[in-house]
């Protein structure tokens, strides 16, 4: 969407431009106007809108009707709102991420639930609490793996002159970069001690991303690389030394040492003490896990540099460029602020160089933040990259800004998933995202972001099926939205219907499931597939519609027993009569059909056997509790022929009494307001009464 209001408005107003901390300013919102290209010639007479799946908005644009009729009268266009618009991630890739993140997300939720129930049972902080961040870490790694591999800047390939400095590989995504930042600051407790070194690695991986609008060390390297083939002696070019300094300043030691630097300096660089547990093969530096060891090594290393800086070597070096370039390199290693500042381009690079050469320890986020502010002041940018805005939010410990930047810069997927990282890091963040807010209709920020993400998933045919996972993780409004989502699926397609019913079964949405089957049943009914219709209506236990259908069938069985059209119904009645199916009061039709057949046979052939069979069917129908009352009179009216059988009475005294009782019951039922009179001749009731009375008389005489 052109942003999601709740998050989009939660900061990032004009004040954020110079990198200053954004106060939480919800009303500093300026709405954007986007063109809506429809391709019609004016004049436009009207515009109308309709929401399609999820976030898709359909807009109909109508032209003023033309008298000559030559022109197109209107266009309907669809806008899918909330999709990231920078085109960094293709639709297919996005769907891959969406599908891939389902199972880590679901696993984490289920762990969270079982942890919560465990802690409820124990009534005290449970042991899980100590390891919770590790579960989140596992989740984070799973998600991170989906976001692609970062590009490595180091490891130069000498063979290809075009790749001396920068190895070409897959473009890193800012989504991954943002995810790693969140992971590093909020989840990975183990790396807290060497956070500066993690940032060095992070910048090495993603420096190319922040060089979109502004020069960076990366962009300078790329630029120089294109010119390198034309240079005779590379050391004579001042740009070479400039680059070496820059690469060194941001810690890309491999580039520096493998591009022709004199041995003594190269060795010093490659021996640089690093406050980190390990380093990738091929990368330079000596790792130290413990701070005292590191400090000792660091001091020794610095002493060696100082010694080299003041050695006689420089007097002997007669190449001015080399001499000055190398001197500069040493100044960088000695942490000369001015040299570092001129060797770096972006504030983030300057920031990293501080960690490498001036202050290689963390002293809490607060000091990291003020250092960042200082760097921003020195390397001011007017339009900060979204990664930098996120970075500032994290360093400034402003969770609201972090959430808002996640949403604004990286979309609804990011914020819905990154909340797990944020809350692993602090109780304050946990409270922020779980607090139920009246302004949001009683839901928390976490639920809001999941709902918004689920709505985006609902926008596409290929992703709506994973929306329920997120919706069911929402305590308050998720099920409501899931119901709406399911009721908007085109259930006349069998596949979709079955999928929907499966989802309903999984989440115990019986009401929705019935409604879907009813809709499907009605669709088939109206489209001439009566059997299919009855099947779904039976599944839905839609008594109202089934009884209406029963009436229709009853009439057609009555009217058309001999006709061709009866054949159409025959199969349907078979279906309704089959055992084990809840027929919704329609199974009596099966018996009624038999009754009518015998009756017809008896009537046309004057066949007493057929007549006796008809009586049996009649009695079975009238004894059967499932024969709806409203059909009793029409059945009895049909039976008049049997009652007045001229040779001898076919219905005995007790049978006649049963029928009379039914008639009596019917007379009482007619007094009720909801009784529906069958469509029969007005004299039908009297006729039946008279016939029954006459038959009773005849039967008594016969039996006595």
């Amino acid at each position, binding site marked *: 969407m*052109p942003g999601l209001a709740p998050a989009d408005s939660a900061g990032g107003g004009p004040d954020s431009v110079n990198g200053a901390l954004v106060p939480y300013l*919800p009303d500093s919102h300026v709405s954007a106007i986007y063109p809506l290209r429809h391709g019609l010639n004016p004049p*436009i007479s009207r515009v109308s809108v309709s929401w399609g799946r999820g976030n898709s908005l359909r807009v109909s644009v109508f032209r003023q009707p033309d008298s000559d009729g030559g022109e197109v009268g209107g266009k*309907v266009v669809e806008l899918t709102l909330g999709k990231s618009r920078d085109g960094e991630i293709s639709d297919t890739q996005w769907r891959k991420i969406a599908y891939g993140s389902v199972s880590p997300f679901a696993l984490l939720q289920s762990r969270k639930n079982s942890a919560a129930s465990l802690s409820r049972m124990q009534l005290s902080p449970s042991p899980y609490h100590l390891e919770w961040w590790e579960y989140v870490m596992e989740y984070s790694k799973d998600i991170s793996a989906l976001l692609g591999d970062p590009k490595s800047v180091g490891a130069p390939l000498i063979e290809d002159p075009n790749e001396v400095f920068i190895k070409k590989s897959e473009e890193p995504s800012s989504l991954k970069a943002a995810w790693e930042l969140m992971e590093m600051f909020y989840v990975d407790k183990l790396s807290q001690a060497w956070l500066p070194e993690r940032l060095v690695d992070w910048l090495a991986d993603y420096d190319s991303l922040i060089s979109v609008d502004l020069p960076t060390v990366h962009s300078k390297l790329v630029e120089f690389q294109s010119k390198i083939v034309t240079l005779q002696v590379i050391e004579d070019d001042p740009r070479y030394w400039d680059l070496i300094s820059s690469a060194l300043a941001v810690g890309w030691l491999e580039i520096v040492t493998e591009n022709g630097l004199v041995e003594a300096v190269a060795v010093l660089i490659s021996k640089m003490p690093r406050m980190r547990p390990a380093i990738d093969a091929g990368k330079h530096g000596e790792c130290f896990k413990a701070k005292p060891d590191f400090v000792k090594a660091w001091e020794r290393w610095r002493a060696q540099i100082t010694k080299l800086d003041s050695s006689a070597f420089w007097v002997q070096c007669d190449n001015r460029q080399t001499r000055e370039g190398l001197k500069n390199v040493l100044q960088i290693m000695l942490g000369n602020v001015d040299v570092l500042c001129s060797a770096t381009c972006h504030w983030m690079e300057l920031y990293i160089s501080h960690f490498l050469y001036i202050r290689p320890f963390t002293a809490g986020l607060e000091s990291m933040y003020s250092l960042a502010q200082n760097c921003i002041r020195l390397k001011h940018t007017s339009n900060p990259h979204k990664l930098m805005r996120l970075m500032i939010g994290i360093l400034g410990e402003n969770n609201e800004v972090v959430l808002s930047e996640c949403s604004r810069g990286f979309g609804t997927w990011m914020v819905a998933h990154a909340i797990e990282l944020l809350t692993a890091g602090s109780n304050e963040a946990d409270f922020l995202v779980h607090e139920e807010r009246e*302004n949001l209709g009683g839901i928390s920020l976490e639920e809001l972001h999941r709902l918004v993400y689920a709505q985006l998933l609902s926008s596409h045919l290929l992703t709506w099926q994973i929306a329920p996972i997120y919706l069911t993780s929402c305590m308050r409004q998720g099920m409501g939205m899931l119901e*709406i989502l399911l009721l908007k699926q085109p259930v006349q397609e069998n596949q979709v219907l079955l999928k929907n019913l499966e989802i309903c079964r999984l989440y115990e949405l019986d009401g929705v499931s019935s409604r879907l089957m009813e809709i499907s049943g009605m669709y088939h009914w109206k489209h*001439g597939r009566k059997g299919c219709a009855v099947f779904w209506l039976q599944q839905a236990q839609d008594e109202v519609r089934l009884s209406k259908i029963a009436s229709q069938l009853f009439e057609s069985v009555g009217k058309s027993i001999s006709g061709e059209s009866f054949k159409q119904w025959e199969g349907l009645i078979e279906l309704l009569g089959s055992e084990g199916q809840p027929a919704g009061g329609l199974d009596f039709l099966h018996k009624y059909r038999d009754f009518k057949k015998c009756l017809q046979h008896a009537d046309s052939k004057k066949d007493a056997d057929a007549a006796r069979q008809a009586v049996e069917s009649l009695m079975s129908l009238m004894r059967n509790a499932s024969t709806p009352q409203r059909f009793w009179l029409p059945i009895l009216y049909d039976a008049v022929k049997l009652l007045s059988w001229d040779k001898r009475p076919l219905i005995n005294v007790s049978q006649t009494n049963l029928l009379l009782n039914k008639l009596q019951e019917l007379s009482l039922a007619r007094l009720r307001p909801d009784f529906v009179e069958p469509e029969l001749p007005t004299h039908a009731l009297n006729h039946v009464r008279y016939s029954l009375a006459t038959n009773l008389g005849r039967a008594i005489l016969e039996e006595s």
Partner: protein
Amino acid sequence: MEKSLATLDNGTTCSAWNYSGQRLATGSVDGTLSIFDSCDPASTSFKCTSKARVGESGVVKVVWIPPLFGDAVACIDGNGSSSLWEELAEDAQAVEWKHCKSFQSNSAKVLDVQFGVFRTILKMVVAYSGGQVKVYELSNPLELKNWQLQAEFQNLTDSVAKLAKASCFSASVSWNPQRGDGQEMSFVLGFNSDTPQLNSSKVWEFDLDHQRWVPVAELALPEDRKDQVFSVAWAPNIGRPYEVIAVATHKGIAIWHLGSNPDTDGRLSVERVALLSGYEAEVWQMEWDMSGMTLATTGTDGMVRLWQSNLNGIWHEQAAFEPAT
């Protein structure tokens, strides 16, 4: 970022998507109803698959009937009468759009028609140019032919009062898009008329005990009650403890919260939480998204606008789209 879905014939004046967004119905000045379908569910290109002549004069509005009653639409024509049409395949014949019911009017024109479902019951509210409101109920859920007039009233808070004939230019009805069967049926209705008392939007609820429609809330501040209402829209509620309804007048778009517990007089509490102004145009149409969090509107300035509330409950314009060739 926009994707073309369909091209409409010259003379098309209105359109409506069905519940699943898989079918489009359009009406035209020559009285034609056209139905557009996509060739397969994954496709986003919609082609006209059937046409039916539904009236002598032009169609001004098409409204889909809820899917529980088949694939059917109500068409309002320029003469002010309305008719129901449905897709049927009878006796092994091909699928066809067939006429099933006409609602002729003698003097008053039909201004708006909307359908509401309660369990298996389908109700239809019709607002007329004379200021009358009629509520019909479908007799047989299998057919759209027989309708019973259930109630007839005017859009007044005092249900005993009767006004002389009014002259209304437009009306807007929106049903409570409730999901469960727990709530009673209700809808909101506002008029754009020369009779001030009729105009303000009122929420009507069906009183099951007394089998009658009663006004349970009025969505206008005392000083705004005479304002002509251009459009109303009741938001889907996925779990809020209150309802949200948008009402558009010349003063702007008001967002109302409607409480769920009636007071002793049976009235529901109302609160206007926002008035979205700075929007000179007259609103044509308002549509809520599936979550009831975003309101899309169109109006005489030709713009499509999206409105949302932020985390602090403050409503604002989130984005606008300006049609361009």
